[in-house]
């Protein structure tokens, strides 16, 4: 039977297209790094998935064709620093595909979001490489040099904007004086927001998770800001920094590892949003999306079983 609606691989493709704007913004501000990482990621994903499948004697083609490995690779590639050395993305994607997905029996059976599992693994194993962000536009030649370690490049300065903010606050700078409306971050987030809205309109993702995710961030950050606006960032800033929009529309909405009931999606999204802020503010890591998603992934079976919709006549 076919309803004429999108099939699984078409859905994946739409999601990939929707990432375009955000990726474009990242390209505009930081240069070629993001594209190189994406290419590296996709190649790694295809190779590692094919190798794993042929080891297990399973047909390779249909699995590759579902596009999920490519999506995982892209999500991870845009989450890591644009100038990270090439092996970071290779290791990360391989880990994500094999330990995040295939080991559970492939797409549909994985309890965790594969891309975020890869990210968490990288962050814990290679904290230095994973937190060193470039802060300027880098052209293609320099990008290749930096990523493939051909010659040492001195563009690798600075931490993430979130880190910067944190550091300045700890140094006693008053919020008002921070140059926090970091243009690049806002534009990248705006790009993902627009892409996400496109997915919503096409009914490829459900409204519940992104809405609740954003609400979770806003409520938690807002509460903290109300408590002390000297130390804590205003909530709207939390939304436009880090991986907030990417997380809300593209990462937390991964259908496989998220809650599947309408009410459950609301709870799921809200909890992640909340955790994102908590990890950002009180945790030692630059951004909280990956850990927040993974932690709430664990709670999904519980959320699902408590949010069964009402059955007709019951």
């Amino acid at each position, binding site marked *: *039977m*076919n*309803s004429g*609606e*999108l*099939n*699984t691989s*078409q*859905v994946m493709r739409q999601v990939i297209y929707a990432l375009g704007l955000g990726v474009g913004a990242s390209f505009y501000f930081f240069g070629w790094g993001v594209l190189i990482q994406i290419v590296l990621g996709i190649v790694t994903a295809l190779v590692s998935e094919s190798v794993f499948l042929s080891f297990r004697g399973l047909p390779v083609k*249909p699995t590759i064709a*579902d596009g*999920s490995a490519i999506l995982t690779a892209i999500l991870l590639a845009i989450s890591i620093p644009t100038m990270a050395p090439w092996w970071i993305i290779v290791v990360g994607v391989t880990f994500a595909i094999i330990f995040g997905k295939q080991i559970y029996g*492939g*797409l*549909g*059976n994985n309890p965790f979001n594969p891309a975020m599992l890869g990210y968490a693994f990288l962050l814990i194993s290679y904290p230095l490489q994973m937190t060193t962000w470039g802060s300027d536009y880098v052209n293609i030649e320099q990008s290749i040099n930096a990523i493939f370690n051909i010659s040492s490049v001195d563009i690798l300065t600075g931490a993430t904007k979130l880190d910067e903010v944190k550091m300045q606050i700890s140094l006693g700078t008053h919020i008002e004086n921070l140059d926090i409306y970091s243009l690049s971050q806002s534009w990248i987030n705006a790009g993902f927001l627009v892409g996400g809205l496109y997915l919503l309109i096409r009914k490829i993702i*459900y409204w519940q998770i992104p809405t609740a995710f954003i609400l979770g961030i806003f409520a938690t950050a807002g509460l903290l800001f109300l408590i002390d606006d000297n130390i804590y960032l205003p909530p709207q800033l939390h939304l436009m920094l880090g991986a907030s929009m990417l997380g809300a529309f593209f990462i937390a909405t991964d*259908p*496989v590892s*998220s809650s*599947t*009931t*309408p009410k459950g*999606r609301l709870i799921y999204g809200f909890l992640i949003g909340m955790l994102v802020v908590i990890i950002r503010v009180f945790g030692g890591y630059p951004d909280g999306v990956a850990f927040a998603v993974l932690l709430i992934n664990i709670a999904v079976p519980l959320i*699902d079983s408590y949010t*069964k*919709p*009402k*059955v*007709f*006549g*019951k």
Partner: protein
Amino acid sequence: MYSDLYKGGVFISNPYPIDDVGIKKTTLPNKVILPLNERMTEKATPCVKVGDLVLTGQVIASNDDFNSVPIHATVSGQVTAIDDHLIPHKSGFKTQCITIQSDGKDEWVKDENSTKDYWKYPQSLLIEKIHYAGIVGMGGAGFPTHIKLGLSQNCSTIIVNGTECEPGIMCDDALMQNYPSQVIKGVEILLHICGAERAIIAIENDKPDAYNSLLINNNNDRISIAHVPTKYTSGSEKLLTKTILDKEIPSGDFAIDVGIVCLNVATVKAIFDIIIEGKPLVSRIVTVTGSGVSKPYNYEARLGSSFEDIVSLSSPNKLKHDVRMGGMMMGIDVPSTDVPISKTCNCIFINNRVAKDTARECIRCGSCNQACPVGLLPQQLYWYSKSEKTDKAVEYSLFDCIECACCSYVCPSNIPLVEYFSFAKALHRNTSEEKRKANIARERFEYREFRLERNKTERAQMMEAKKKAIKEKMAKEKSQKDKITKAMERVNTNKKNKINE
């Protein structure tokens, strides 16, 4: 116009629409094949032999089971065989059928006791006549109508289902357009039989012609005609009740349990035929459609004529076909067109054979639970059905699934969800049955063990007691022996002493 009162369902328009929805009367078939147990219930016993001459409408097989209906000859002619034949059923089994060769005259049995003035007759008599006429739910379920009516005394509302059960089927639309006065009259008979206050005929809003023709013919203010949204699964008894009366029939119950009788329009027409015309159910209207025919249409065909008889009238193409009885959603695949038309055969889909898209893994996208009109979580049901954890699936209300296939229809991974569910239902019924049997067996076994154990201990105790007794006896004997020997010794020593002295 009623609004959409339940969540889910899918909007599908007729994939093969035609301009004028009419009915073609087919010529008499040369022969008809009539199965003895269409519904896989108790098999009817033939009351004719090979070689007998029969009239149209004559009972040729029946049984005493109140739950089944008699089988009638659908043409006049001669019984030529009583043997096994393939019938359109999920199981793909052959079953015993009576074959009648038509004499081309179509001579009918006489209606001995006319009930034209039906209001003069008691309800029970009319219901009995409906039973005799072999009328069953013609919308697809095939539930015997006399049983439904028998339970319907003093119900409040009659709902006449004129919504086509599935996209593509046009037979009810055609029937309402061609026999509007008969349908209205049939409803009046029903009002009399059930003692209901009112009857509502529900028609989808994309069938204005059927709606209008009924409207023109209706002069009875207890009968109203309602437009309902054209949404798939609106035709299901429970969802139709919800749409029209905003009443939710509790899970596990039927419409009849809340005082509502729900009957298909074709069934109502059949009731008219027997009560007013005295004709038992011998024909029905069947839609022939699908990608494999160039002229989809409706045919009034005698029951027992072969699919092929009417499919050939719709100009099938020369390609290979998949044949399906019933709709694209809930129908069943049948191996060929060489099977007889049954009372529940509302539609024959002839589709060009195409390579089936393979199913992929479930990505838990949730499209299915959005589409489910009953509010289930098909993705969870799928998970538990696949792993055969049917207990879990039942916890997720597996048995509330009406097998409407909305979920399968929208699934982007192309998973035949509904097939898993009907399998899981069967499996669960089997395993619970087996469990029950196993429990009995285990109890028996345990009792036997207990008995054996008890016997063993009893025996052991007995042995013990015996042993003890023997020992005691032996001990006693020994002490006696000892006494004797001692006495002997004493005697001997005395003797010796005496000698020595």
